[in-house]
């Protein structure tokens, strides 16, 4: 980097989560999870089911409300906890502005069934950003070309395969031009032969230096694409290390047991 100012700006983490606590009734799902993500990092979050991976991800963009902790997105405080242990979220407009920096892809796609593929992608830019239809269509078509689905632009989601739906979901999230992409088990609902096309789109995104946080069971993706792998178990992060190191020599016995079981 040539200029010092850019270097300084790059130091601000994209996501800084400190000591997140979350419980559902009596079940403690997150027990003090902390993680800092820098610009351009691709983080794979792995771990057994029920370990709190998805909940952690969903807390970051306010789909779940934390009980305690602090979340700062690109320097803006989404939520913090004061000395008395009282959890305070940013006021509504600020909250929405911060959350808009993060795009999200769901396990179940959650495409809008009543809209065509193109309309799914243009809906938020038109409704939320107030852009004109003419202005957003070229961008939407470009995104569709990128995920290889331009010929499906006028199809309804029900006519698509799972892999195609998920690629549309990725394009839809990208249309809002987020700085960070969150993926919640994006390939878990897919037939095995369809995961490849989705992972390819994600890999392409990683190559473009998008900051990504991916909850996944795809060990190959975690190993080959991610810059860091986070292992969660029972609501805690047990290890967060460079992908290569993590797979070569997992430090924690539970990580080792999990990886042996998965590979």
């Amino acid at each position: 980097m040539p200029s010092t100012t850019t270097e300084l700006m790059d130091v601000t983490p994209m996501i800084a989560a400190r000591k997140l606590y979350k419980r559902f009734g009596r079940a403690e799902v997150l027990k003090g999870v902390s993680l800092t993500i820098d610009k351009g990092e691709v983080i794979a979050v792995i771990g057994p089911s029920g370990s709190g991976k998805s909940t952690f991800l969903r807390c970051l963009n306010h789909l779940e409300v934390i009980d305690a902790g602090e979340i700062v997105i690109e320097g803006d405080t989404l939520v913090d906890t004061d000395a008395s242990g009282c959890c305070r979220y940013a006021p509504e407009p600020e909250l929405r502005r911060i959350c808009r920096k993060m795009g999200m892809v769901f396990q179940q796609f959650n495409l809008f069934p009543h809209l065509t593929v193109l309309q799914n992608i243009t809906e938020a830019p038109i409704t939320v950003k107030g852009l004109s239809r003419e202005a957003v269509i070229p961008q939407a078509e470009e995104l569709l070309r990128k995920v290889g689905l331009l010929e499906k632009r006028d199809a309804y989601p029900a006519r698509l395969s799972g892999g195609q739906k998920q690629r549309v979901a990725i394009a839809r999230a990208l249309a809002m031009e987020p700085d960070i992409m969150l993926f919640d088990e994006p390939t878990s609902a897919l037939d095995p032969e369809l995961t490849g096309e989705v992972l390819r789109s994600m890999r392409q995104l990683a190559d473009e230096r998008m900051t990504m946080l991916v909850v996944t069971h795809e060990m190959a993706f975690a190993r080959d694409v991610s810059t860091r792998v986070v292992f969660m178990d029972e609501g805690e992060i047990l290890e967060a290390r460079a992908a290569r190191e993590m797979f070569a020599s997992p430090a924690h016995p539970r990580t080792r047991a999990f990886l042996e079981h998965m590979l």
Partner: protein
Amino acid sequence: MTIQTRIGRRLVGVARHDGMTYFLEILQPLLEGTGVTLHVFLLTLALSVPFGLGLALLRLSPWRLVGRVVNGYIWLMRGTPLMLQMLFIYFALPFVPVIGVRLPDFPAAIVAFVLNYAAYFAEIFRAGIQSIERGQYEAAKVLGLSYGQTMRRVVLPQVIKRILPPMSNETITLVKDTSLIYVLAMNDLLRAARGLVQRDFTTMPFVVAAAFYLLMTLVLTWGFQYLEKRHAVYDD
């Protein structure tokens, strides 16, 4: 001579004379009655659908107390006869302190119909809104849509498709329920027909009235079929 045979003779008489002339003669009052029926029907529909939607949204709002009040309202409106409600608003409301107003017959009927039908529509809307998966709300939220935008752009368009069949049912029922306004002595289609039957001792006005009702419900059936077809371009 029994009534039946008298009507029978009269029918024969009509047939021997000119059925067509008689038909044209009763057409005028029956069409006027149809006008009253349609007036009540359209006004009720136009007002009770938005009112019902508002009730459904309040019922589903996070404020518990509001939800309970709406629940109580729906129970009251569905739990008592529409005719009783109409009589109450016309005859008893003027004596209720504070809110008591004396309404002329037509507004009284409309108020009763709207209050009553909104309760039924509210339940249809509520069921429809609750049938939309949570993932739709989450997808809208992460894209930055506000609650209002989510409802308008994502949830309600899908709700409409799902509630068309029950809405069609309820709307067709409304056409026939309009005949209840006879208790306020208003000349809707059925009361006009009954008046003619009693005057002329022939059942022909009933037959014509039935045909008119069938025609109205046929148009509605077609209308809803068209809407269902239009919404069938996508599957859930």
